[in-house]
């Protein structure tokens, strides 16, 4: 290939990538634009691309007039509690299989079992959970969601944490043990501080998953007392007449939290989504 034609290919490729990027970005742009429109703008004969008079009124309307601030709090409480629980359980499971001489078959069993849960469709699981939750009187209560979220995101937490722990050399702890430190001390003073970044990444990603969850919350809750934010947003869509700007504002708020968290933990997102098959160095 000549220098000139190579240059042309390059320009053509960049142009193509720009077009692709535009197609992907446009729906997102229109969501934000709509979320900034006034009520009056909704009655324009042809909807405009840009908000004629940008306003944050729809956000206020969604959060306070419609009381979605309560749903936001529910989502955060359910997500944080389930994340903390999942991390603690994942640590208790990952510690013996990464820091102690666990038989390889036991280790493989635990990891495989966790991964197999990833292949279960939530709708199949929610039917028995619905019965359990009603029987033990947790229907329309946040603890039901916390329980289900903990179990459902535990596989992700186990696989991610195990990846991080495997990368921390065991020699440092062994040196401390040889020097007479207790195992508990080696865990608390060496392993825990060394795995801080990993734990933070798992917390962020598991929380983002909990935040986005819809089906369980949709079926296991009924009133704003326990409803989560995505369930509220869904309610804005399927009602008889859609208030477009409020719906868009709800969508933007639902996106903002996982998006900002994922940008913080960007190096670990793909590891999480592929159960550690893809690693970003």
């Amino acid at each position: 290939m000549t220098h000139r034609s190579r240059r042309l290919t390059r320009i053509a490729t960049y142009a193509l990538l720009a077009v692709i990027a535009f197609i992907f970005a446009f729906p997102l742009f229109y969501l934000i634009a709509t979320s900034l429109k006034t009520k009056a703008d909704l009655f324009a004969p042809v909807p405009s691309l840009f908000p004629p008079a940008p306003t944050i009124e729809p956000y206020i309307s969604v959060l306070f007039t419609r009381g979605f601030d309560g749903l936001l709090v529910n989502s955060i409480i359910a997500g944080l509690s389930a994340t903390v629980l999942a991390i603690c359980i994942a640590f208790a499971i990952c510690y013996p299989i990464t820091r102690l001489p666990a038989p390889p078959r036991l280790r493989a069993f635990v990891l495989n079992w966790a991964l197999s849960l990833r292949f279960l469709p939530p709708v199949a699981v929610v039917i028995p959970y619905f019965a359990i939750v009603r029987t033990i009187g947790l229907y329309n209560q946040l603890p039901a969601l916390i329980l289900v979220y903990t179990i459902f995101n535990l596989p992700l937490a186990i696989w991610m944490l195990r990846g991080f722990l495997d990368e921390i050399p065991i020699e440092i702890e062994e040196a401390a043990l040889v020097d007479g430190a207790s195992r508990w001390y080696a865990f608390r003073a060496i392993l825990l501080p060394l795995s801080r970044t990993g734990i933070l990444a798992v917390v962020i990603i598991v929380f983002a998953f909990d935040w986005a969850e819809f089906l369980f919350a949709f079926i296991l809750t009924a009133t704003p007392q326990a409803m989560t934010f995505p369930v509220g947003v869904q309610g804005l869509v399927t009602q008889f007449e859609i208030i477009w700007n409020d719906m868009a504002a709800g969508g933007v708020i639902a996106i903002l939290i996982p998006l900002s968290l994922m940008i913080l933990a960007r190096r670990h997102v793909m590891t999480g989504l592929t159960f550690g098959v893809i690693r970003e160095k």
Partner: protein
Amino acid sequence: MPGSRVSAVPAQRFAIGARIRSAWMARSRQERLVYQLLLPVFGSVFVVATIPFVLAVIQAVTSDSRGFVGFDNFARALGNPLLYESIKQTAIYAAIALPTEILGGLGIALLVHRTVRSSAIRAAIYIAAMIPIVIPQIAVGVIFRLVYAPDYGILNVLLGQTGPNQPLWLSSPPLAMIATASVDIWQWTPFVYLIMFAGFQTVPSESVEAAQVDGANAWTQFRHIELPYLRPLLLLVLFFRIADVIRVFDHVYVLTGGGPGTTTQFLSLYIYRIGFKFSDLGQASALAVVVMVAMTVFYTIVSRFLPADRG
């Protein structure tokens, strides 16, 4: 226990107990610690996660009014023609979305890998590609409601089709399928891109250089040098995406609610409808059991091919 007075049977039991105990003591202290730490936690998690399976089976073979009903619910579930309709629609959805995502993601990864040298631009594309993936499915539904809805949707406005004869993307049969599948493509092509792009980085540069010295053209280089490195990742993506298509629910529920008719009543929406719209929890449990078993079989087969190190 005084040994002289025990009969043969307890003595034997004692011997087994002793054998287990001595096997236990023969393990190193550390190995014993593995079980002491792992069993209580993993055991309880395992039980809690397995209860739904057991309960689904119980729900499927019993009825509140008639007690044990045997395989009635399974017969009704598997005899319902709507089940096969939903499987067919799910398959069509997958047949539209998955090849587009995989070829599209692979193509873009190849383009970026070959032409974009600047690490700043690569990093920018990395972040940009992550955005659709991290958007909650419900919000994805909201976004595309704004694209496809009649009258207020921007697509028909851009196409200049705002009159009474505008295409009804969400409520006419072939279009609703295309619309819901396109949303899947929008959200997951970047995911395939990210995996494939990471895959291209694992191809050793020596092999590529050697091929170029031998005069390989761009296609041969892709086909014979790079593709073999990508193959396990392509399989991985395919498996993950198939599992995801089975669970597709949120964005379709928001966009079409499964309609029009049964056009977008995919498997998850169908089970939801049986269980919670028709309140036929017996039939829904039978479906849940069938799906759980099918996915377990699928996973067992798939896990042999997954490139992850298996622990």
